[in-house]
Structure formats: structure tokens, C-alpha cells
């Protein structure tokens, strides 16, 4: 009986839902729910983003540390190689390789030849023919000159 009464009351309440005031409250509740869900999603995403960002930073930092270690190792190796190179190219090593492996020998005493370029070069003539005696040759030159010389055209 008691339950029946309650059910009746509930029925009367459900009737109440059909009223206009109920509609307004319902919309309000729905809006809050949506807002609540939105906020929840937003906060969750923010937290996820933050965590992923932190993870990213940590990963990058780890990578940075790793790269720093590698850089240090490469630098050490480079230094060692430079020193090895210096040792291999030291004069003692070069001489040892030259003598023992390439069978080279010490240079013999250096001989210096002095080239004297101050000596005056005197032009020697086999025969000196006086100009006046070379009259025919002069005429020949004149004729050749006249034939071969071309006068450039003037604007006038």
C-alpha cells in the first residue's frame, strides 16, 4: 500500500514534468551536463597534452644527453686521431718509413751552380752592309709597302 502510494505520487510527479517550468529546468540540466562533459574532456585533453609535452621534453632531454655523450666520445676520438696523425707524421717516423720501407737514402752534398745573368749579351753581326750599298733592297721594300698598305676610308 505504501509503495502504491509512492507510485501514485511518482505518477503525479511525472505529470509535473510535462509542465513548462520542468522544460526550462531540463534544458538547464542538459546544458550543465554538456558543459560538464566538455569541461571533463577539455581538462582530460589538457592533462594528456601536458603529460605528453612533459614526456616529449624528457625524451628530448634524454636524447640531448645521449647526443652530448656521443659528441664527447667523438671529440675524444677526434683528438686521439689527431695525435695519432701527428705521431705518424713526425719527422722521425717519416725518416724511418723513407729509409726502411721506401729504401731512400740521405741526400748527397748539395752542389750549387751559380748562374751569372749579369753578363752583357753582345750582338754579333756576321756582315755589316752599309745602307747606301743596299739601294735595290730599299726600292724593293718601298714597292712592297705601296702594294700592301691599304688606306682606311674617311667620312669625307
Amino acid at each position, binding site marked *: 500500500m505504501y509503495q502504491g502510494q509512492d507510485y501514485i505520487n511518482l505518477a503525479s510527479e511525472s505529470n509535473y514534468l510535462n509542465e513548462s517550468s520542468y522544460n526550462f529546468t531540463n534544458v538547464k540540466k542538459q546544458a550543465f551536463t554538456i558543459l560538464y562533459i566538455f569541461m571533463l574532456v577539455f581538462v582530460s585533453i589538457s592533462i594528456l597534452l601536458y603529460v605528453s609535452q612533459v614526456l616529449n*621534453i*624528457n*625524451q*628530448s*632531454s*634524454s636524447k*640531448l*644527453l645521449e647526443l652530448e655523450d656521443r659528441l664527447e666520445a667523438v671529440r*675524444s676520438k677526434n*683528438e*686521439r686521431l*689527431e*695525435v695519432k696523425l*701527428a*705521431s705518424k707524421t*713526425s*719527422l*722521425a717516423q717519416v725518416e724511418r718509413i723513407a729509409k726502411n720501407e721506401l729504401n731512400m737514402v740521405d741526400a748527397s*752534398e*748539395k752542389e*750549387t751552380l*751559380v748562374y751569372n745573368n749579369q753578363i752583357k749579351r753582345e750582338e754579333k753581326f756576321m756582315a755589316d752592309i752599309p745602307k747606301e750599298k743596299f739601294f735595290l733592297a730599299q726600292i724593293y721594300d718601298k714597292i712592297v709597302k705601296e702594294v700592301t698598305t691599304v688606306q682606311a676610308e674617311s667620312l669625307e
Partner: protein
Amino acid sequence: MQQFEESKKNRIIFYFAIIFILFIILALRLVWIQVINSAEYEHKALNQRIKEFVVNSERGIIYDNTGRKLAVSLPAKTVVALPDNIINPEKTAAELTELLDISYNTIYRRITSDAAAIFLQRKVSNELYEQIEARNLKGITFTEESKRYYPEGELASHIIGFTGVDNNGLSGLELSYNNYLSGKAGKMIIERDAQGKTIPNGIREAVPGRDGYNVHLTIDEVIQYMAEKELKNAAEKFDFSGGSVIVMDSSNGDLLAMANTPLYNPNQFGDYSEESWRNRAINDVFEPGSTFKIITAAAALEEGVITENDILTDPGHIYVENEEINCWSNRGHRSQTFAEVVKNSCNPGFVEVGLKMDKETFYSYIKAFGFGEQSGIRLPAEARGIIPEYDRIGPVELATFSFGHGISVTPIQLAAAISSVANGGKLMQPRLVKEVDTGSRSENIINEPQIVRQVISKSTADKTKELLKQVVESGTGTQAAIEGYEIGGKTGTAKHYNEDIYDSSFIGIVPAGDRDLVVLTILYDIKGETYYGSQTAAPVFKNLTANILNYLNIKPDTKDEFSYQNNEQEIEIPNLIGESFLSAETSLREKGFNVKLIGDGKIVKDQLPAAGIESNYNSTVWLFSEKEAKEEILIAVPDFRGLQGNAAVKLAEQKGLKVTLSGSGKVIGQSVYPGRRIKSTNQINLKLR
């Protein structure tokens, strides 16, 4: 039923009370930890995560003057044992014994000790590190340290020196420039996780240190190599304990090479005897012998007591206070000019010259040339040389000094002194470090060439150089001559007291463009038949110098073959007694004589040689303001035997001695033994036949 209910309620209350009390205790404890004592726990937690360690600064690099690295620092691994982590100590010790230079027992004792961590072997080679790493031994780990490495090995090892296991300089420049090279250690604070890995974005703070400064030397690697090679070659030919070679640029005191034997490799300095570590060119002294005659000649020429044309006599010996001093030539060099005395390296001739200077003058020149004091090269344990105290020097000591005996010098002192002759009289401080590179933080420290003092005038220096050139051209140093180069030099041979062991040396002045190089070669403790400087040190000098000239591309000058010109003109000495010093000096200099004034007076009371005597052009005439001063002078008696009467008289007059002749022909006897030193007033009787 009600009683049971009550009992149940009481028990619940009781347990609740206990839980409450426990909760209160826990809460209080939490308050104690989190609030009241939080700082301490925070500190403890931080200490677990944070590791603070010292970041060692990198030691500076040593370069030669061509930019070649002579000493560098490399990271090296140190083998560390963590005894708590070692599972099987016997097996670990056995495996490490195969690789490390440590016995099984030592390793076992160490890896089973109570220490948390222990160094097994520091700064192992990279190859050894890789071998140990490959074994993957539990509880054996590595830490990184810095190790000094010398890429050129033995080259210039005596100059550079070496460092100890803690990277502090122990010898050579590594020690003397340790403050510049070592730098300042920094500090690093890092947050680490339980595995010891660095926590990304954790605490990471650094107190920066300062790397060591780089040092640039004046040494030329190639010349240094040549010098060391020549000493090695000499060791194959001669029997000697070691040698030194110094190549110095006389214009600025720069050392282009400073080599010593025996050599050692600073990378494994522990494998060599301490004797091998010595830089004998700096740390040891030797008796310079005839090479010191350059100093005597320069001092005497500067003081005007002698000129290259003055006549000196050598009967093979000279007596100083009854002590007989012999010439290296038993027969002596007879009558000769001072130029010939230098050329022949005549001991009695130099004794005469040395004694012409008074003790104070000669001693002051020895000091002025830098002997008896450190050269300022700034290398550890530099010797000062041994010069007897002034008060202990008598005529005999002065006589022996004049030919380089009874005095001990360091090779660097001798090279610096002869450099002053080569460069026009300036004593330069030997320079080994050109610049200290302090990086970008501050200005570099530049070690400018330093003139210690002007010891002799340029004209004296030039004259001395000319005299040395004829030594190489036609005197005792011909073994050092190189065709086409005007090299001046002097040999030196000093015998050890009471032993047939010799120190042989040669010092030469080599023209190299607009500067002169001074090259000193010394071979210590030579034994055997061949020991003279001309036979041993001079050929070493020649080979080395020829290579240096070739390397520096100094072309030979074949046009102007050097030939020392001796003016053989003779001039009559005027009578100057009674004249003023000034006019007498002017008159003599106009005629072409050198003048030496003795006394403080203004009027000439006496002169030596006497007036009317024909003497060599540019020979020295002594003018005295007191007659007694001349009488006190002791003159070495020549060996007149074999001379014609007139020649004997002329020689005696030139020297300021009085002779009387008995008989005719050649001198067969003389009343005063040759080599004795007598006063000018004493008479010598010559017997002729």
C-alpha cells in the same frame, strides 16, 4: 544478550581507540617528517640523487714556432674496481693480471679490500681499455681522466719535460710553466636516478673551470730534429757520454733548437734513467776551453789592450808565477800577430792578452757576458756556472781563465755570450717561450726579446767576428767550414783533471740572411784517440749547419770568398814623452796606431814600445803617466833562438824588452828562459854564432 552487545561495543571502541592512537602517531610522525624536519629529509633525498664532481681543466698545448703540437692532453680511462660488485674475485684478478702490469696478488688484495671503489691502473691506453671492456668483468668499471701525450716522442723532450700521474709538471717547461699550462678545475652538479643515469631536466649546475693556457715556443721542430739527429750520428762515431746542441738566433735570443743526448721518450719517462732526463744544456756545467777565448779576445779588443796586429810570442809555454802553462802545440807558434793567435788558438798568446787586462777588468767582462748567473731562460734547475770568487783570483787563475780553464759555464751561457758577439755586442736573454695564449678571456702574454746589456761595442763585436772567420777559413776550425758561407767559430777541448777524458766543443756564428745564428755543439766525456774539438764537435757543427742553411734556404755566396786581410805595413813609433795624453793619443791614432793609456796623469812620462821602433800598422802603443807603471809591467820573453841578430833586436824592441848581443850570426842562447815574464827594465843577453 545485552551483555554480549555491550562487550562487542566495548571491543569496537577499544580497537577504534587503538587505531585512532596509531593514526595520531602516524599523523604526528608525518608532521615531524613533512613539516618539522622536512629540510633534513629533503637534503638527504637530494644527496642521494645529486652527484657533485670535479671537472678537471684541460692542460694547455705546447706548440713549436711552426704551430706543430709538441705536448697535448687526451682523455684516458682509469680502471676502477668496485669490490662490493665483484662476484668472483679470483677469476677477476686472474683475468686482469693478463692485461694490467700488476701482479695477481696485488690485484686480488685490492679488489677484496673494504673500500667502496679502488683505482687499479690509472690512465691506461685506449687499446688496453678496449680489451678490458671486452671482457665485461663484473665490478670493474672505468672513469675518465686526462693524460698528457707527446706526439713527437723523443723530440725536444729535455725542453718540454713531462707531467706526473696527477697532471702536474715534473720536469722541463711542463714544470716551469705549470701555472699557465695547468688551468683551474671546475665543478659539476648533476641529478641522477637510481641507476646512476642523468635525470633529464634534473638539477644540472656547473661552476666553470679554466683550461690551461697554450704555450708557443721559439723552437723550430725541423732544426731541433736535425740537431738531435746529428748528436745521434756523432754517438756512432765517437765514444762520449752525451752531447748538447744549441741553435740560437743572435738577433733576439730565440732558441731554434736545444738538443741533448741521451734522449728519452716523455710518454714513457719512467723507463729511462734520471740521467737521461737532464737538460745538460741548462743543468750542467763544463769547462769551455778554447771557446772561451772569444770572450777574452772581445774583452781585450774592447778595452784596447790589444789589436789584431799586435805582436805576441809563443815559445810553446809561458810562466805565470812559476806555473808553466803549455800551448797545445809543443813547438809553440813563435812570433805572431794577435789575429794569428786567435787563428792558431794559442794558449800562451791568450795568457799574455788576459794578463794585459787587470783582474778587475777581465772579471767584470766575464760577469758582463752573463757567466756566473742564470740566463733567465726559465727552465727548472738552471745552473749558474762556476766562477771563482773575486778575492781568490790571482795571476795564475786569470791566465787560465783567458783560455777557458779554471772556469765552468753552462752551454746556454756560452751560446748567449757568443750571440752578443754575433749581434753587435748586445747580450740577449735566451728566449724559449714566445707567447702564452690565454684564450679569448684576456690578452696573450707575449715574451718580448730582452736585451740584458750592451757588453761590447759594435765595432769590437764585428772585429771579433772577423777574427773568428779566419779561424774557420784557415785556422783550427777548418773542419767546420762550409763552402760559400762566411762562418766564424772556435773549437774548444778541455781535459778532465787527472783523467784522459775530454769535453770537446765548437761554437760558430753563421750568417743567415739579416741575422746571425749561433750554433754550439758539445760532446761530453769523450774517450779514445779522437777527442779534439776540431776532430769531433766541428764536423757535427758542419753537418748540422749545412742542413740548417739548406732548410732556411740561405743561398751560398760564391762571389765574395772570405779572406782575412792582414795589413802588413810597418810604421815608426814617434816619441811622445812629455806630450799631453790627448795630443799623444791623437797623433798616434792619426798615424794608425791603437793607444792604451795607463794612469790618471795628463802628461806622457813613458811609452811602450819605445820611440823610433817600427811596429805593425794598428798595433798598440802604451802610454804611461807614471814611469813606475811601465816598470811594473811583466813582458813574456820570446824564444830568440834561431833568429838573426837584427831580427831578435827588432822583436825585443817591439815587445818592449832590452837585449844585448854577443857574437854574430844567429841567436844560439839567451840569458832568460823563453816564456818567462820579466820587467821591461831587465836586460836579456843573447849569444849569437
